Every structure is written in structure tokens, then in C-alpha cells.
């Protein structure tokens, strides 16, 4: 592992929010993440692209704490979080959504969001207070649902919502944690093209107005070019290209991979 002082020397002078250094994770013989140096700057919306198995989700899993890296370092806001647990990372301001919608299906949409807020406020330890009596939390939950256009669905069980709504609710639940850094794993997978733009417009608006830094894993290159200011492309566990949408378009190496991949 690299000594910390060296890492700080290597820190770019601009507003780096997150940085990984030589991050590695292998599953058996497969190097899912292979020496990745990944930098996210404050306030940017970054798209993480690449074919299936490129290591995008693994990278997000490492950053969010779902997986522990084999080696390498993760620095968030100048602090080494490599060995921190999920709970500490959330307290530090890192939230994520999941590729396969990951909700509490037997709770209503409202209750899903409310739990986030309760948790953020440290209220999930309250045993002898009726949750319905907490009007502040109730109000905030409804506001979050409103931002995501789900106010009409608040009383429905999460399991009964349509796929597009579930995708939005998944993001809303993470957003309700008030994160500084939001990792979204394929927020538009499995929905129709028309719904994709609705979902991405909503996410984009919410992220920008909240000053949230976001990393979005996305397969649809139209979506990527429309919504991301920066694109990082992964291939076989490594970062293959990193730049603005225009730079990425011009990058023939990437174009070849794209043509060879599933993006055509």
C-alpha cells in the first residue's frame, strides 16, 4: 500500500471528492477491478461506462463498502475510508442505489423514503415513540416523493409499483439520506426508452439542485452523452478512457471497444 503522505502529495489541487489508488479486487481468477485510479471531482456528474463484466459495479461496490478491496486505497474528502464499514461510509455522505431494484417491498413508497430520513436523523433507535406522530419526518418524506414525481404513489407498497417507478423510488431512498456523493448503478436499466429520459431528467435535476456529486453507471450511450459531463470507460477491470463526451466520441480506441461491445 502507498504511504498516506504520498497519496496526499498526489492529490490534484482541484476539488477532488473521491480518489482511488491502485484499487484491486479479484474473484478467483477474474480481476474485476485491476489497479484502478479513479478520481471524482466535487459537484460533477460522471458516467461510468463499459461492457458487461468491465468492473463498473465492482468498483461501485468497493467505494460504497459492499465489497472490501484486495489492495489499494480509497480516499474520500481527504480521508482514508478503505477499511471503513458501510455505516461509517453512509455517515460520511456516500449513498448508493442498486442495479436490481433493492427496496422494502412490503413497505409503502412513503415508508421506504421515511426510513431513510429516520435513519439519517438517528431515529431508528426510538422504541417508544409512534413513527406516525413524527410530522417533521413525514413532511420531509412527502417532499422527497414529490421531487421524484412519486407523490401519488406514496401509499402503495413498493412491491406493487411499476418498474420505472421502482427505479425512481430506489434513487429517492438514497437521495433521502442527504448524501454528498451518490453512486447510481444503472438507474434506467429495464425500463422503456421513453421512461429513461423521464428518470434521467428527474435524477439530473435533483442531483444538480442538491449540489450532489454523482457517479452513474449506464449502458445506454445516448443517455450518457446527454446527461454526463465526464465519462469514464472501463474494460476488463481497468480504466480505458476518461474525458468529456466529446473527447470520448473522438477516442477511436473507445469507439472500437464500443462497436465490439453491446452499445451499437
Amino acid at each position: 500500500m502507498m504511504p498516506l503522505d504520498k497519496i496526499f502529495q498526489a492529490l490534484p489541487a482541484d476539488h477532488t471528492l473521491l480518489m482511488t489508488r491502485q484499487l484491486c479486487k479479484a474473484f478467483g481468477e477474474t480481476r474485476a477491478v485491476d489497479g484502478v485510479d479513479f478520481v471524482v471531482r466535487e459537484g460533477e456528474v460522471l458516467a461510468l461506462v463499459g461492457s458487461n463484466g468491465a468492473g463498473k459495479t465492482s468498483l461501485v461496490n468497493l467505494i460504497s463498502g459492499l465489497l472490501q478491496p484486495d489492495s489499494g486505497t480509497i480516499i474520500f474528502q481527504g480521508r482514508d475510508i478503505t477499511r471503513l464499514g458501510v455505516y461509517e461510509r453512509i455517515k460520511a455522505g456516500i449513498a448508493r442505489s442498486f442495479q436490481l431494484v433493492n427496496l422494502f417491498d412490503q413497505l409503502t413508497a412513503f415508508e421506504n423514503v421515511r426510513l431513510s430520513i429516520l435513519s439519517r436523523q438517528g431515529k431508528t433507535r426510538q422504541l417508544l415513540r409512534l413513527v406516525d406522530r413524527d410530522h417533521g419526518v413525514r413532511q420531509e418524506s412527502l417532499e422527497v416523493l414529490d421531487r421524484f414525481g412519486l407523490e401519488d404513489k406514496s401509499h402503495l407498497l413498493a412491491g406493487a409499483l411499476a418498474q420505472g417507478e421502482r427505479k425512481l423510488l430506489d434513487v429517492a431512498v438514497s437521495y433521502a439520506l442527504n448524501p454528498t456523493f451518490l453512486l447510481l448503478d444503472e438507474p434506467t436499466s429495464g425500463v422503456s426508452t421513453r421512461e429513461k429520459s423521464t428518470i434521467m431528467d428527474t435524477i439530473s435535476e435533483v442531483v444538480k439542485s442538491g449540489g450532489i456529486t454523482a457517479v452513474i453507471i449506464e449502458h445506454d450511450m445516448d443517455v450518457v452523452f446527454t446527461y454526463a459531463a465526464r465519462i469514464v470507460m472501463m474494460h476488463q477491470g481497468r480504466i480505458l478512457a476518461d474525458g468529456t463526451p466529446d473527447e470520448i466520441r473522438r477516442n477511436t480506441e473507445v469507439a472500437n471497444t464500443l462497436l465490439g461491445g453491446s452499445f451499437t
Partner: protein
Amino acid sequence: MPAAAAASPLRSLAYAVPVVIILLMLPYVVTPYQTILMSYGLIMAIAALGFNLLLGYTGLLSFGHSAYFGLGAYVVAFMVKYLHITSMELFLIGGLIATLLVTAVFGIICVRYTRIFFAILTMALSQVVWSLAFKFFWVTGGTDGLRIPTPTILNGLLTVPKNKIAFLSNTYYYYVLIVFIIFVALMWVIVHSPFGQALQAIRDNETRAAFLGVRVRRARWIAFMISGGFTGVAGILWAPLNGLTTPDILYWPFSGEIVFLTVLGGFGTFAGPIVGAVAFNYLKTYAVGLTVYWQLLLGSVLIVLVLALPTGIMGTLGRLTMTIKGEEGK
């Protein structure tokens, strides 16, 4: 589903008040035997309510709740035998402290696991407690058990009838009923608290709950202690009612009974375990009276239950009312 149920205290009271009125009048309308039978039912209901905080709300099947029930009962017996205490209130305090201490330790071990591993661990630990009661007969009385005399209520403030039957079917029945009401209300608040919401979230999706900053293991541990505590209180109340405590109540088939009656009532509803406990109590009492093959009868009920009514009595009733309301709406 517990989550979808209305959390309005008023609506819940609308159901609870008539039931409480009937229970209050019971000693005046039925025989002392029936009243005592109901005491057993209410006590098992407290145990089942505790058990269901884990099964219905947290998604953990404990197969070792006999340990906490038995612990409550044995602590009462020990307090009588070794400390010569007769105060029911001291029994409750002492028994509850002992149960919480044991569940705290057992909980730390068990909540590291879920599903079948959790069930097996809880069962194994309860068997340890059972074997202690069984083997250390010079302390516990072994299979002969320990006797528990009529306790004093509220430090003698309440005059207790000399006649044991009169005491059990009247004074003690009301005592049990009051404790029952307090603990039902307490559990109702817990499952409708932010903590209760967190438990249901953990039940539905542990990973996501963790990614919302819910400390999953800690929440399970606290739920485990509350659950054991409730079942312990049931054991404490049961000891003077039964007058004798034997290792049977620590043995694993008793844990099975708690599972059975909760499933019978419906573990997906708040009231299910209460209804199941009372119903099972009658079922078992009359089955035993009816035939020596009573276990066969209970087994058949269980099979029918699992196959035909997997949501239990309350779950099925709830569905029926929904259907009827739906029909009326058309």
C-alpha cells in the same frame, strides 16, 4: 402485513376495547376453571407476542423461546426457594432482569446468523438451559421441578383470597390481564415506532437497510432482547398460576408450541399471536381431554393450517374482510 396495517391508535382501540370489556367481565360469567384457562391463554399470548417481534417483524425464526419462558418461571421458583420472596412485583422485576441478561448474551451469539442457522443456534442454546435444569437437580429439583406458592400482590395491599382457586380465577386473573394489556400496548408501540419500521425493513431487505445506515445486527440484537423479555414475563406470570415449574417448559417441543400457536394465529398480523395463543390453549386443553392421541389431532391441525391457511386465523380473516368489502364496493 404488519406494515400495511393502519397504525392509527384510535382504529386499533376500536378493536381492543370490546375485547378488553369481555375479558374484564369473564370471571362473572364463566366458571373459575374457564377463567383460569383464559389466564393461561393470555400468558401464552404475551410469550407469542414477544416471539413474533422476531418472526413476523424481523424475519427471524427462533426455535429456542422455551429458554426465556422457562428462565422467567425458574427465576420465580429460585426467588421463592432461596430468597424466600413472595412478592409478585419482585418476581416480575427479578425475572425480567435475569431474562434480559441471558437474552443479551444469547442474542450476541445468535444475531450473527439468520435463517436456519439462527433457528438452530437458538434451539441449541435453549437445550443447554434445559439440560442445566435437568441435570442440576439439587438446585432445580430436576424433573420433580420446584413449587411456587401463592404470591403476595402489591406488597399485601390487595387482600388475597385464602382459597387458591378463588385467588387464581379472580385476583390473579385480573393481575395477568393488566400485565397483558400493558405488554400488548407496549408491543403495539414498539412495532409502530421508528425502531419497529427499521426491523421490518431488515426483514424485507437486509442489504438495503444496511445501506440506509441502519445498524442491522444491533437492531436484531435489541429485538432479540425485547422478544426474550416478553416471553420471560410470560414465564414469570405462568409460574404462580401453574404452581410448579418443571424442565418441560425449557424443552424444545415447548419452543415448537410457541411457533405453532403464532403460525396458527398468523404471524403477519399484530393480533395473530394473541388469537393463536388463546385458540391453541383451548385446542390443546380440549384435545388432551378428548383423546389420548391429542398430538395426532394437533398435528393434523398444523398440516391443514400450513396447506390451507398459511396466513393463520387473523391473516385469513383479514383477507375475508377485504374480499367482502371489495364485493360491497362493486
